[in-house]
């Protein structure tokens, strides 16, 4: 058995990842065999029988499902996730092209979530009363407003009415950092409302629990300044919960981008999913799902490692 607990955490995560990827990829093949409409009808609306047979053969659809899956799996292990039915583009190339867009939406959102969410949670825990109630009601609003609708409202005001920010479109960071930032402000605001609300509420709860604990009472009794008690001692104890919540929110954000990318016409993985789903482009949706699953495994791994950093009990026991 592995001695080092950190290594053990990593190994356990990866153990779970293998069956997970297997299930995720097998599932779509299984479902496609149950599909009511044949993908060939979509691709060749008025084709001759000979053309059907040729296309089916080219796409490998004339083989039994398990052979199709085996074929896919062997290629996937070699890094080839297949090609799009509709555009003929390689799925891997599509992911490589679109993932940076999604990242440039998700990364600032995560930063905003931690800064604003944790900040508001801590402030309301320390000050309590009215600020706490305000955060509670903002949380409810954050839950209730769908991101794509918030996006639409933001566009109608900041882009259409006062022409402050661009309504749609994506400028890559490498191309022009300033324009990139301008193009990302509204999408990030729309996407971050919910994660900020969740983070603020959970951080507040966690801080309240820590501030009621015996070791904080003893810190007061030791004359430790409030600044140190709140922001150095208690915040580190509460950060475990923030990290857990943060990990779950990042996972939610990955797919949450699909609606916001559509509102702002951002060519990321989310809008790739949307386009592929509406044209029945199974290799693309499947490839993106497998890719997302790998990203989720990585995020969970990062969360586990952060636990080990933040809590000595995880590290040494």
């Amino acid at each position, binding site marked *: 058995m592995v001695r080092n607990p950190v290594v053990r955490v990593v190994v356990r995560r990866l153990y*779970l990842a293998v069956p*997970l990827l297997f299930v995720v990829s097998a*599932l779509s093949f299984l*479902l*496609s065999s*149950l599909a009511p*409409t044949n993908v060939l009808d*979509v691709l060749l609306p008025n084709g001759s029988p000979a053309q059907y047979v040729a296309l089916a053969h080219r796409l490998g659809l004339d083989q039994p499902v398990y052979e199709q899956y085996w074929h896919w799996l062997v290629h996937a292990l070699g890094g080839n996730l297949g090609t799009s039915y509709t555009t003929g583009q390689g799925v891997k190339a599509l992911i490589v092209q679109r993932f940076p867009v999604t990242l440039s939406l998700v990364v600032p959102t995560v930063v905003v979530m931690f800064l604003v969410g944790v900040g508001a949670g801590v402030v309301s825990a320390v000050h309590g009363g009215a600020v706490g109630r305000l955060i509670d009601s903002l949380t*409810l609003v954050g*839950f*209730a407003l*769908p991101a*794509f*609708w918030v996006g*639409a*409202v933001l*566009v*109608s005001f900041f882009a*259409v009415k006062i022409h402050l920010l661009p309504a749609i479109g994506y400028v890559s960071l490498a191309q022009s950092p300033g324009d990139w930032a301008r193009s990302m402000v509204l999408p990030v605001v729309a996407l971050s409302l919910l994660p900020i609300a969740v983070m603020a509420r959970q951080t507040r709860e966690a801080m*309240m629990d820590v*501030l*009621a604990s*015996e*070791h904080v*009472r*003893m*810190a*007061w*009794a*030791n*004359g*430790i*300044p409030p600044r*140190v008690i709140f922001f150095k*001692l208690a915040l580190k*104890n509460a950060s475990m919960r923030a990290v857990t919540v943060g990990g779950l929110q990042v996972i939610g954000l*990955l*797919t*949450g981008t*699909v*609606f916001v990318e*559509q509102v702002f016409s951002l060519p990321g993985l989310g809008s790739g999913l*949307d386009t*592929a*789903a*509406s*044209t*029945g*482009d*199974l290799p693309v*949706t499947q490839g*993106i*799902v497998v890719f*997302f*699953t790998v990203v989720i*495994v990585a995020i*969970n791994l990062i969360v586990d490692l952060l636990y080990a950093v933040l*809590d*000595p009990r995880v590290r*040494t026991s």
Partner: protein
Amino acid sequence: MSTIVGIEPVDGTPAVASTIESASLFRRLLRRPAAVVSMVWLAIVVVVAIAAPIIWPHVATQNAGDIFDVLKGPSWQHLLGTDSDGRDVLQRLLVGTRVTMLGVAEAVLVTLAIGVPAGLTAGYFGGRTDRALGWLTDLTLSLPGLAVVFVVLSIFPDSMLAGMVTLGVILSPYTTRVVRSATLPIREELYIAAAQVAGLSRSYIIVRHVLSRIVGVVIVLGAIYAATALVTQTGLAYLGLIVRLPAPSWGGMVGDGIAALTNQSWLIWPPGIAMTLTVVAFGLLGDSVRDVTAERWSVASVQRPSRRLARPVAGAVVAPPVPASATDALLRVENLTVAFGSKGSVRVIDDVSFDISAGEAVGLVGESGCGKTVTAMSLIRLLPGDGEIVGGRIVFDGRDLACLPEKELRRVRGSEIGLISQEPMVSLNPAFRVGWQLALSVRTHDGLSRRAAHARAVELLRSVHLPDPELVARRYPHELSGGMAQRVAIARALAGEPKLLIADEPTTALDVTVQAEILELLRELQRERGMAILLVTHDWGVVADLCDRAVVMYAGQVVERAALTPLFREPLHPYTRALLLSDPHNALGGDELPWIPGGVPKPGFWPQGCHFHPRCRYATEACRQRPIPLEHPADARQTRCIHHDRLHHDQLSVVQ
């Protein structure tokens, strides 16, 4: 049944009880305005979802309305205006309610249909079943949920049923987890065991006795998932993936509005407001049901201790000038009164006075709930919850701590008055190394550099006789034993070189051998550093070991003060006497330990007159009528008893 197994079913007949409970749940909800408003709104939405498509059957297939009247704002003819094809927005909103709510219903039903049985099974059967379901749950939770919905929609194009069923499946592991953890405690209850012994089938027990108890939890989950499903359904409809045009849906209407945004920004508002209000209604309903069921559980089960923040409290009294000290006491507590509750409604400490000279050890003795700890904590103004000093003075070294500004008091805490507590293991912060925490205290009091503070921390650890202090400094609190942790806590209290150490039950949580070592250490520190100690305890043995004098407290009051020897020889308060007699150290082997009948009355329920009279065998009518003042029966002795001379006679005859 109950006579055979010898236990009573807790809830009478659970099947009947559950019907009553559901009815009362509803009645309790009706008392909450937020719940009523939510339920009314949701009822309207459901009625509209059913009725609107029947009233306006043509709307679902209408491709264009009045093409000369497109993108108009609200008017009498079209209350919510018209869309880019000239169709009436209000009609589309009402008719579109059906497909929206249908999608929500599909997802919620699926998630509950999977999650509730799975959670019940895992919680009820436990063991291997539980582990297998737990693994499946973990697996499903690691899926990129919404992306899976897109895969399914690319296989079943335009199928809302397929999409929402998939969403339901994706959400079900959360339900499984919550239902499982709600089932676990119920499974342990006696009437379940009784039902099993009575030979009822497992499925019957699960459905009748367990499911009926978690109805509240299931409703809360249903409401949360309805909100989630609504946001997802409208999003998918906005993307045009689940509702075939021209049929209206709330999400689709937002999409129409976005397409027309540059010409008419009004169109995104009606569907947006409908969505938001409905999600809020689900959220508020869920919160209300949770609160109502939690109310009910807290009545039946153990009362959850309210979360109280131990925080510094503001000084209550405006500072009167402190007169030059009459005695040379280091600490003089005069008529200290502490109250809890809003506006200080409940007194917990009543008119407490005592003093401690420099280098002296004084024991504060009494049963649990007498106010010893509150008295000790109020000296440095660290009261739990809404506790407040409402009267009296705490003169320490020429200053009144009861009304010292918080900022100055902070300089007293730790550096002039130290504290060690009952639970050494939890008194240190689990996330930081022991050495770092000690160094933090050192730096706070001395302003030393990091390196010097660390060296001083190691030195402090050595001074409390910890072997290998360098190594201990690098440890985390969970790597210490209880005795080591208490030594570390004492070392930390010494960091500021206090003149007074408050030791609140410092040995209670420790093994007997370790107790003796810690007491020896405290005695040594008192001797060598000339440090005064206020020892809070219920253990006369500990008092005898360490203290010069004792202050006995009962129900918020000081009942006796005396030097230790005369107190032990001749207690002048019936409570002190009873407490001494019931001490296990005094009992002879084989003797039954005498005990004091009754219990300490809770604050707010103190009897009139002498607080001890209901438990006192000397009580007379005079004891019940008016408060008893402290009397001075002898030099340096005080007792709050008018019958102390009767007690005096008794001692002579009884004790020996």
